[in-house]
């Protein structure tokens, strides 16, 4: 019995409830409590990861009901990796937000909502049931709607509207898809769907459900025709929340795509893979052009999220074991790098009182450590060897060459170069150039900025470790990919347990 599996969901919910019920006002005690809770969640995720990599997938039957009837939680390699990433990024962002805002000015609902967001994200990694996945998405999205507009002014709320509208549309479509899946397969348990889908290969219904789910998860991940909601809504968030959103939310879409293609559906949906690969090519090139066109840090970074999503989707589109491993490695690299870049932007804004590049400057002199972190992470995002981004891109492009998809390889390379260009734009604007006459700067670095820089440094170190320890991390990604692409092992783990109402 693995009751521990429910804790990555339960702990954040309990933390949020306790905050709402007993400590309604922000204070130092509450901050310490939430930080401890986030640390415990982090430790738990790593413990689960160690177990998941040494044992077959861990399964919990909720309420003791046997699989096709009851809801199951499953942790395999990929889910464990994602849990670790989400809890680490959440911890970093929570600590950063402590430095970002003084206690008296903190929004009382911000941290409880953030915990609910973490709970929704974790549940969507844990669950082994399609409808439960919908519930997890809803918890995550409702919390994210609230957080997005919590500290926004009128103008910002207008930017948040597309986010709300597109995601509500996506949720409605997801519900339709889940209903259709139930009518086609007669079950919503992912392992059971995988068993039945294998038996009805070539059936039109399987394809329809798969296409619907791809559209839904494509919306969540921000793939080409459906990414409109993302790049304008993320910049309205404060940096600490923006870092968490940019790191985790779209990657939930990627995780679910990997899960459905790898474990749930039979591996012969070739037209769908091809379509995904081409959409991915368009996504990365068009979004990176958007990034080049922006002139404030949050805007540039938000477009980059979409562009980077393109690489992961491209890897899924190639759909070879190496490509899936590359995708998982890319997710590991991307979440850390992207969040830390957002946090670097937040620290830079703390120095300059703005993140508009035209009015920033002088940060290289003001904080050389921050500048070093930024240049490392920016090169890593662009894919300069030997940093972490290089290995992911290298593997994806290698697969592209093996599969003779040369145009897509060209698109990936062009997007990389343009990524570097837009990153250098931030470098020139914020770090290299002198402070313009109408800019403001905090002459002395307050204690808060030191804390922020320390958090950013920690994330940069993790990222460097991923780059230099690429062999180890790629090994992990390959193990996760192997077990992801082996539905038999997943089914075996789920159905080997007996519970009430078993067949």
């Amino acid at each position, binding site marked *: 019995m693995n*009751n521990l599996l429910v804790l990555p969901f339960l702990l954040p919910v*309990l933390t949020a409830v306790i905050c*709402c019920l007993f400590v309604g006002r922000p204070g130092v005690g509450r901050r310490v409590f939430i930080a401890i809770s986030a640390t415990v969640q982090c430790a738990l995720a790593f413990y689960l990861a160690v177990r998941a990599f040494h044992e077959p997938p861990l399964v919990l039957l909720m309420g003791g009901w046997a699989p096709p009837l009851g809801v199951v939680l499953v942790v395999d390699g990929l889910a464990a990796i994602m849990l670790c990433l989400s809890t680490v990024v959440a911890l970093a962002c929570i600590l950063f937000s402590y430095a970002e805002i003084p206690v*008296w000015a903190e929004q009382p609902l911000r941290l409880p909502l953030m915990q609910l967001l973490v709970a929704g994200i974790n549940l969507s990694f844990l669950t082994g049931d399609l409808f439960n996945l919908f519930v997890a998405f809803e918890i995550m999205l409702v919390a994210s709607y609230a957080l997005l507009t919590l500290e926004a002014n*009128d*103008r910002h709320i207008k930017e948040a509207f597309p986010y709300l509208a597109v995601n509500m549309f996506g949720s409605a479509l997801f519900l339709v898809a889940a209903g259709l899946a139930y009518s086609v397969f007669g079950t919503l348990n992912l392992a059971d769907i995988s068993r039945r889908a294998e038996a009805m290969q070539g059936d039109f219904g399987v394809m329809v459900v798969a296409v619907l789910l791809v559209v839904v998860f494509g919306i969540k991940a921000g793939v080409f025709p459906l990414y409109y909601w993302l790049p304008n809504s993320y910049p309205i968030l404060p940096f600490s929340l923006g870092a968490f959103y940019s790191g985790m939310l779209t990657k939930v879409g990627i995780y679910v795509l990997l899960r459905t293609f790898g474990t749930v559906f039979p591996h012969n949906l070739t037209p769908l893979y091809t379509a995904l690969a081409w959409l991915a090519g368009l996504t990365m090139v068009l979004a990176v052009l958007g990034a080049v066109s922006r002139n404030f840090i949050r805007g540039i970074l938000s477009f980059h999220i979409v562009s980077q999503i393109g690489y992961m989707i491209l890897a899924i589109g190639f759909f070879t074991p190496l490509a899936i491993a590359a995708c998982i490695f890319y997710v590991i690299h991307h979440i850390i790098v992207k969040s830390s870049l957002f946090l670097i932007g937040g620290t830079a804004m703390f120095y300059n009182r703005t993140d508009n590049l035209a009015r920033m400057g002088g940060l290289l002199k003001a904080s050389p450590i921050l500048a070093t972190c930024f240049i490392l992470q920016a090169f890593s995002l662009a894919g300069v060897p030997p940093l972490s981004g290089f290995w992911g891109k290298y593997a994806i492009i290698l697969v592209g060459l093996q599969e003779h998809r040369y145009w897509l390889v060209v698109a990936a390379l062009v997007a990389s170069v343009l990524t570097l260009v837009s990153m250098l734009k931030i470098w020139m604007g914020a770090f290299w150039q002198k402070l313009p006459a109408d800019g403001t700067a905090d002459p002395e670095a307050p204690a808060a900025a030191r804390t922020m820089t320390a958090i950013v440094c920690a994330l940069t170190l993790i990222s460097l470790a991923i780059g230099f320890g690429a062999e180890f991390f790629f090994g992990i990604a390959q193990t996760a990919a192997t077990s992801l692409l082996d539905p038999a092992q997943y089914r075996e783990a789920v159905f080997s347990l007996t519970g009430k109402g078993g067949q």
Partner: protein
Amino acid sequence: MKATTDSFLVRALIGLVFLLVNIVSVYLLLRGHNLPGGGFIGGLMTGMSFILLGLVRGWEELQRELPVPPLRLASFGLLLAMITGTAPMLFGRQFLTQYQLHLDYVPLIGEVHIGTPLLFDVGVFLLVSCITVKLVIVLARSTSGLPAFTPGEVPYYASELEGPIEETANEEDRHAN
């Protein structure tokens, strides 16, 4: 704010309607384990009954008469549901494991079948009904020209830095492109 309707009949009847709707909603809550119904639907019905009450008597009066802040009660409901789910874990059973009690004969009622899922459902009931009430009160207050939160609530919902949203509308935007 004055009541939104001055009809004597409506005001006289609203108490009765409120009672009837809540009897049905509690009935739905109790039968929910084995039959259509449950905490969610019951909670929505109770929420609706409060909307009726607010429409007739006015939102400020309704808010004054609520014995507990709705969001606290909603959090309590969520906590109750979570505890019902977690308690079996202490005895080494799976999360959400349920325990039933079947009584063949209870005076006046007859056969009774209750279990821990009922507690869970009560938690959901509190959560849903209170969230509905809170949402509708905030919306109704802002559409009738009142500030969304009473002065006593503001510290629990807003940061010290925030002003009412209308006042920041003309502020120059940092990121105007």
